[in-house]
Each structure stands twice: as structure tokens, then as C-alpha cells.
């Protein structure tokens, strides 16, 4: 067992290696200037980095002094860590920005956390000034920020993280929390921050799969969910979990660089949990609802996650519980199968590319008549009918270990009445009685579209202004499954669980999918090769071997090395003697702070 001291020494070694690499990079940013300062880089470069950060134009009319979460947080992380070493010009720019600038909160949970963390550090630092940038004395912001941060920590401890398990945005939760842990003068806040950091790293560890973050994600970037390694969280995955050689291309992202110079270290057992799973395991998590601000006559329900972490693959899905027919969070990924392999070659996922403009106005202020153009204009890929990410209000999923049913009932008037299934292109697929079967060496997989489908090629690129010649964003097969009731059944099993690939194919095809009530009665059932029967009733119950799957009983965390009940604020991670207990000291009878952002 790795003890904490050994573990911290390993983390420090990785941090030093990473800092060396970052310090050698050209054109530092306010996020990466930490490496310059740690390595004695030039003060001119540091000043330039701060100037670039704070003079960045935020949409609004070219006002140089206006910034947001991505300005206030890196500025204050830099100032708080290196005030004594900062060039005077850089220090003055940051001070002026916080005392005389204009700063906006943004509109997602990570925005607010960065905004409030940065502002809190600034309000503490300049507490004796008469006025803060917002026209009030600094103590007003200090109180406001503290209330919101403590409130959102409490929500996370009681009902789960709202902007859950996002390879893209988890870093934007980790960095403000690490900054607060390092620098706040409020000891109670620091204590709660350390506790919630344990949860956030545990979230990373429980679904860490050989460099990937398996399972459903509240947000997984735009056109990145066919990748195996996604998002800036890779930097913290490597820093805290190690387990593979350092690769600057994979393991460095600017947003995470302040963590390399921080003192914060997670519990060592979380690194062990990330890599060491002696047996396949089911990870259950409850996450907070995807808050909808309109187009719904009832609030969204909790998100119930299931992720099966096997030896050679991971299959994860979630009950998203969106109310109504309008909301479809634009970068949510509800399920995927992931394994170890190159980009585009180790993921299977499908979705309904829901086009309704209300998916924007359910979360943001523009009227539905304007929302599609005002939001989709800036992100045109959100309008693509080939989209492979994003939620649909017409999707229902049931999962048991390595088997999943993904079904859709899409209204006839929908602009995209079909589902898109992504399959890797270098896989040798075998078609047999409607099943697409593949030998992945260590495991086998079978996918059965539930309606007619057609093979297409999908290739999308960042450099698409004139001609797409390289699918650096997406490159694979797109199977368009016809609506209005498309779907898939999928099962993956370890190769050692069956005699051979041929045996897998024969047994998988023979076990079959019961479509006798699909789509007429809205029921579909999948029998696994282990003879478990998974049944999905659209907008009804899900059953495993005849027993109703009770999502109401889902724990906050449930896994061989994670246990926590909802609303208690208490968690245990680890096994045997090697455990970490977390207790947020919460009174469950007290009301929670209302959640005021999406994310």
C-alpha cells in the first residue's frame, strides 16, 4: 500500500517534470505563468502573460477592463501564489482589474465557482480598500462569495455535483477549489473546500479508465466524445494518478498548471482506486438535476449514473431525468462504451441529434424564436444533424453491467427523426442477424440497432473552412438509425468469459433482443449471454430479471470502494484499513441554498 508520504513524493516528481515542460513553452498565459515563476523565467514574459489575460476582449463592445471567470480566477491564482515575485506592473494590473474593472459571473456552475473564488481571494487581499470593483466595500463580495461557495459545496455533498464528471469542465471546478484551499484566510471555508476536493478527485478516480474518464458526462466538449482522452482534466489525472509515462501532448493543459505549484494533494488511496480494480465493478453515483429554467412544468430530477468498470472496457450510462420535451443539454453525453485505444478507435456511443430551439432557451435567456440563431450562430456544430453529443428529451436508457439498451421515441415533427451511432473504423465488424459484432482482443462487443440503419462515413475537422481532409475532431462510421423509434442494444464481455469470438457471436445472437413490444408497446428487452434479462419500458420501469430497478434507492456513491447516502454529507472511500472518511458536518434538516446557475 502506497502511504501518503510516498504518494506525495510521486506527485511532486510529476509536478516538477510537468513544470519543466510548461516553463519551456512559448507565449505563456496567466494560467501557465506559474511555471515561469517557479523556474525563474523572465519578468517580461510574466507581465505580458498577465496583460494578455486582462486585456482580452470579452464580448460586449470592446471594453478592455471587462472580464469574467476566465480572467478573475487566473489573475488571482497568480497574485495569491506569487505576490512577492510578481513584476510590479503585473501586480498593478491585477490590482486595478479587481478594484476598478468590470467582471461578470457567466452562466454555468464552473463560471460562478471561478468568479466567486477569484473575487473572494481578491476581497480578502484588498479588504481594507474603500471600494471593490463592484462599487461596494470588499467585505460585501467576501460575504457573497463565501455564501455561494459554501452553499454549492453543501449541495454537492448532499445531492451531488450539478456539472458532474465533465472532462472539459471538471478542471474549472478543481482549480478554484485548489486556489481557495491554498490561499483563503477563512479556515472554515478551507476545511469544507478540502472535503469537497476529496469528492471531486474521488469522482475522477471511480471512473478513471486507463487515461479516459468513462461513463456519462454532464458535458464532454464539442465533437470530442469519440476521443479516448478528453479535456484539460487529463493534466490532473496524470498529476494525481500517474501510472503511465509523461506525455506533454496528452498531459498538459494550461488551466491545470496552477495545481502544479500548489501544496494540495489528494488522499493517496484515490490514486490506487483509479488504477487498481481487482475485479469488475459497478460504480453508482447520484448527481444533482440538470436545472432547467423554463419550458418545463416540473423541475428536473436527479441524475442516476451507472458505470461498469471491467478489466478491458468500461460501459457507462445515466438516467438524466429531464422533464418535458424541450430540454436537451447541448454537450451532455448520456452513455458510451470506452476502452484503451487511439483517438476515435475506442469509443462506441449514439444519440438523437435533437434540434429543437428550446434546448437553448430552456437554459438561457433568449426567446425560443431567437435562441437557435443567437446561440447556434456562435457554435454552428450544434445545428448539425450528424451530431454525436448532446441530450435528447426523447431518449431512455437501461443498463446492467456490460449491457445497455438505448431507446428513442422521437416525435414525427422532429427535424432529425433518427439516431446517430458512432463506430470505430479500424474495427473488423461482423454482421450477423442484425448484430454488429467485433473482436477487440481483450473483450468482445455486439451492437444491435433496433431499426433499419445505413452506414455512413463521418469525418469532421477543426480546419473545415474550405475542405475537411483530416478528421481530427471525428473520424469513423456513422450509422444512421431510422426513426421514429430508433435505438440500440449493446453487450460487451471480457474475452475470457466466453470460449472464443465465434462462441461470443453465436451466444450473443442466440440470446437476442425481444422486440415483440417495440415500438408498439414501448417495451424492449435484452437477454445477456450470462442469461440476465434487462427490460426497458419507455417512460416506465426498468427491470432486471423481473425485478424493478429502483433508482430512488441510488446512493450518492455506491461502489466496492465508495459508499455514501444522499443528504447525509458523509462518505467513505477505500477498503479495509485504507479508507478516507469525509464528513461535511451537514444538518440535513436545513434548507439548501437555491441553485442559481446551469451547468
Amino acid at each position, binding site marked *: 500500500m502506497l502511504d501518503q508520504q510516498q504518494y506525495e513524493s510521486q506527485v511532486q516528481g510529476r509536478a516538477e517534470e510537468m513544470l519543466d515542460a510548461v516553463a519551456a513553452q512559448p507565449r505563456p498565459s496567466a494560467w501557465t505563468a506559474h511555471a515561469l515563476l517557479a523556474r525563474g523565467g523572465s519578468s517580461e514574459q510574466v507581465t505580458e502573460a498577465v496583460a494578455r489575460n486582462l486585456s482580452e476582449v470579452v464580448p460586449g463592445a470592446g471594453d478592455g477592463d471587462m472580464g469574467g471567470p476566465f480572467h478573475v480566477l487566473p489573475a488571482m491564482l497568480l497574485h495569491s501564489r506569487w505576490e512577492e515575485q510578481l513584476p510590479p506592473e503585473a501586480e498593478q494590473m491585477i490590482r486595478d482589474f479587481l478594484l476598478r474593472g468590470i467582471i461578470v459571473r457567466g452562466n454555468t456552475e464552473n463560471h460562478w465557482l471561478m468568479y466567486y473564488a477569484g473575487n473572494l481571494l481578491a476581497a480578502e487581499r484588498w479588504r481594507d480598500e474603500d*471600494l471593490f470593483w463592484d462599487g461596494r466595500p470588499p467585505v460585501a463580495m467576501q460575504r457573497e462569495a463565501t455564501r455561494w461557495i459554501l452553499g454549492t459545496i453543501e449541495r454537492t455533498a448532499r445531492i451531488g455535483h450539478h456539472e458532474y464528471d465533465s472532462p472539459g469542465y471538471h478542471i474549472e471546478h478543481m482549480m478554484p477549489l485548489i486556489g481557495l484551499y491554498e490561499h483563503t484566510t477563512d479556515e472554515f471555508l478551507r476545511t469544507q473546500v478540502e472535503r469537497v476536493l476529496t469528492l471531486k478527485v474521488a469522482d475522477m478516480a471511480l471512473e478513471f479508465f486507463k487515461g479516459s474518464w468513462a461513463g456519462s458526462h454532464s458535458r464532454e466538449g464539442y465533437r470530442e466524445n469519440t476521443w479516448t482522452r478528453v479535456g484539460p482534466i487529463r493534466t490532473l489525472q496524470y498529476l494525481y494518478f500517474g501510472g503511465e509515462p509523461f506525455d506533454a501532448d496528452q498531459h498538459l493543459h494550461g488551466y491545470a498548471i496552477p495545481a502544479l505549484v500548489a501544496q494540495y494533494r489528494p488522499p493517496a488511496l484515490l490514486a490506487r482506486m483509479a488504477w487498481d480494480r481487482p475485479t469488475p465493478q459497478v460504480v453508482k453515483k447520484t448527481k444533482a438535476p440538470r436545472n432547467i429554467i423554463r419550458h418545463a412544468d416540473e423541475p428536473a430530477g436527479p441524475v442516476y449514473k451507472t458505470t461498469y468498470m471491467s478489466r478491458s472496457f468500461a460501459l457507462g450510462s445515466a438516467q438524466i431525468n429531464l422533464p418535458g420535451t424541450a430540454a436537451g443539454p447541448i454537450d451532455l453525453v448520456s452513455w458510451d462504451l470506452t476502452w484503451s485505444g487511439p483517438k476515435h478507435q475506442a469509443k462506441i456511443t449514439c444519440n438523437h441529434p435533437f434540434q429543437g430551439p428550446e434546448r437553448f432557451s430552456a437554459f438561457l435567456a433568449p426567446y425560443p424564436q431567437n435562441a437557435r440563431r443567437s446561440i447556434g450562430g456562435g457554435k454552428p456544430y450544434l445545428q448539425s444533424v450528424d451530431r454525436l453529443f448532446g441530450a435528447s428529451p426523447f431518449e431512455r436508457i437501461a443498463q446492467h453491467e456490460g449491457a445497455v439498451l438505448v431507446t428513442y421515441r422521437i416525435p414525427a415533427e422532429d427535424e432529425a427523426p433518427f439516431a446517430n451511432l458512432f463506430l470505430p473504423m479500424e474495427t473488423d465488424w461482423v454482421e450477423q442477424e442484425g448484430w454488429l459484432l467485433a473482436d477487440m482482443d481483450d473483450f468482445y462487443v455486439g451492437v444491435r440497432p433496433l431499426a433499419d440503419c445505413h452506414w455512413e462515413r463521418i469525418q469532421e475537422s477543426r480546419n473545415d473552412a474550405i475542405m475537411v481532409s483530416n478528421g481530427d475532431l471525428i473520424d469513423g462510421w456513422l450509422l444512421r438509425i431510422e426513426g421514429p423509434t430508433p435505438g440500440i442494444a449493446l453487450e460487451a464481455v471480457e474475452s475470457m468469459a466466453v470460449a472464443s469470438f465465434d462462441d461470443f457471436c453465436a451466444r450473443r445472437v442466440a440470446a437476442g433482443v425481444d422486440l415483440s413490444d417495440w415500438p408498439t408497446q414501448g417495451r424492449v428487452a435484452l437477454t445477456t449471454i450470462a442469461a440476465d434479462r434487462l427490460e426497458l419500458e419507455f417512460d416506465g420501469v426498468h427491470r432486471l430479471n423481473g425485478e424493478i430497478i429502483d433508482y430512488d434507492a441510488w446512493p450518492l456513491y455506491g461502489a466496492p470502494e465508495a459508499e455514501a447516502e444522499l443528504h447525509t454529507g458523509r462518505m467513505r472511500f477505500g477498503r479495509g484499513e485504507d479508507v478516507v472518511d469525509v464528513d461535511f458536518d451537514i444538518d440535513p434538516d436545513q434548507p439548501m441554498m437555491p441553485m442559481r446557475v446551469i451547468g
Partner: protein
Amino acid sequence: MTGESEALAPADWLVGDVGVWAGTLGGGWRRHGPYPFAVQGLSRTATDLLVGTGHGLWQAPIDPRHRWVQLHDEILTEVMTVVRDASGAPVAAGSYGVSVATDDELGFKRWRSLTEELSPDERYTNVLHLEAGLWLAGTEAGVLISVDDGANWQHTDLSGSPVRCLTRIDDSCWAGTDDRGLWCSQDGRIWWQVDCPTTAVFSVAEAGSCLLVGGYDGIYCRDAQGLWQRSGPRALIRCLTVAGDVWAAGADPGGLWYSQDEGGTWRRSGPFKHVNVICGPMGGDGTC
């Protein structure tokens, strides 16, 4: 643009777009302070200006050289509309409902939602209308009414459709809906649908004997004989304001337009692209 340091004058029109702009419809415009927030609601007095924005609620001094003061806290988010109650205190509404504030021991505003327990559609408030003993909220679920200063809310006859505008004209209240046209009420509780050539009504105003309606595709004018005529740009007309013989229309997108010949001719004014709110000069009709 004219001088950015010029104080607000009673004769100024105010426009909420990216920031608050002051000026005259046929003349120049100046931004009131360097605050490029998306402005959605304004409430003006002789001594200050409350500005409801996508980034909370702010108090703007008359002199733009002075800093705006943040009035929101962590509970109050996007503000779609801001009005003042009988005491002059701000009542703000937006994506998380209707909220009122009290001061903490240091004098900073702490906001309390009056509609926290309602459903998302009932809570999301586009527009507020306050009178003594009668608060009306135009929500995504219809018009909600409160007769106890917001403590309790009930549905009205006008339910099941997003309400985009609410205004009192003489002894009647008028409401515009997203998909069911124009509605009228005497008491705010019982509503009836009024014949109107557009199903999407985002703004309503009175212009002498005419009723003006802003739709998705332009401005509709109903004359004293009840005949409707469309005029102006074929744009989503989010706000309409009439001051004397000047009609002003804010299009989102499409900018600011005005007419001085009862809708015969409309001219675009200023640098605006998304006009959410227009205040006429103080002391007359159309102020806010």
C-alpha cells in the same frame, strides 16, 4: 456618439442593449458608463437608474463618471425586469422568479425569492406589473397574480402560454403571449383574448386612439375603428414606447426604430442591434 461623460438628462431617451444608452431618437447616443451588460430592464427616477441585466441588478448614478453599484447577491441572477414597489424598493424578476430585497446589517442587499417553490415555467418571469394590492407576473406559464405583495401567487385565466409583455392602459391590463396573441383584463384575474393579427405578441403600447402591438414580424397598429395595419421593420419587436407623437420600437435583433408620423415612416436610430427596453423622457408617457 456624443460625450460619454454627460449626465443623464430628463429629456433623454434611454435604450437597453449592450449597456444603457442615452440620447435622442433623431440625434446622437452615448453609453451611460462603461458597462457592456445585456440590459433587459430599467427603472428610472430623478436621482438614480436601476438596471436589470443578464449579469444581475445594478444601480447606475445619474453621472456616468461614477461607478455603478452592484445590487444583486448570489441569489439574484439574470434580471429580465425591474420595477419599484410602493415604497420605492426594487422588485426584480427573471429566470428564477420574482425577488425582493432587504438590507443586511452592513446595508448590503440580500434577496429573497417570492416564487421559489413554483415550477420552472411558473417561476420564469419576463415582465412584472405592480399596483397597490395587485401584482401581476408575466411568466412562461401565463399571468400569475398576487394580492399580498408577492407573498402568494395564483394562476389567472391566462395560463399555459408564455407571457412576454404586460401593461396597464387606462382601466385595462393588456398581455402579449408567445403563441396565443393578445389578451385583456379588467382585474388581472379574468382575461379574454382580443382579436389580433399576430399570435406572437412581445410588446404593447397605447398611442392616442391607437393600440400598438409588437409581433415577431413587425408592428401592428389598431385604430379607433378596430382595424389593424402592419408597419415598420419585419423584425421581432421586443419593446414599444410612445412619448408624445414619437413612437419607438426596439427590435431583437434589428435595433432601434422610431416614427414621428404615426407609423407611416420608421427610421433606424443608433448603433443598436438587440434592443430589449426603451424608456421615454421623464415626466411624460413612456418613461419607466
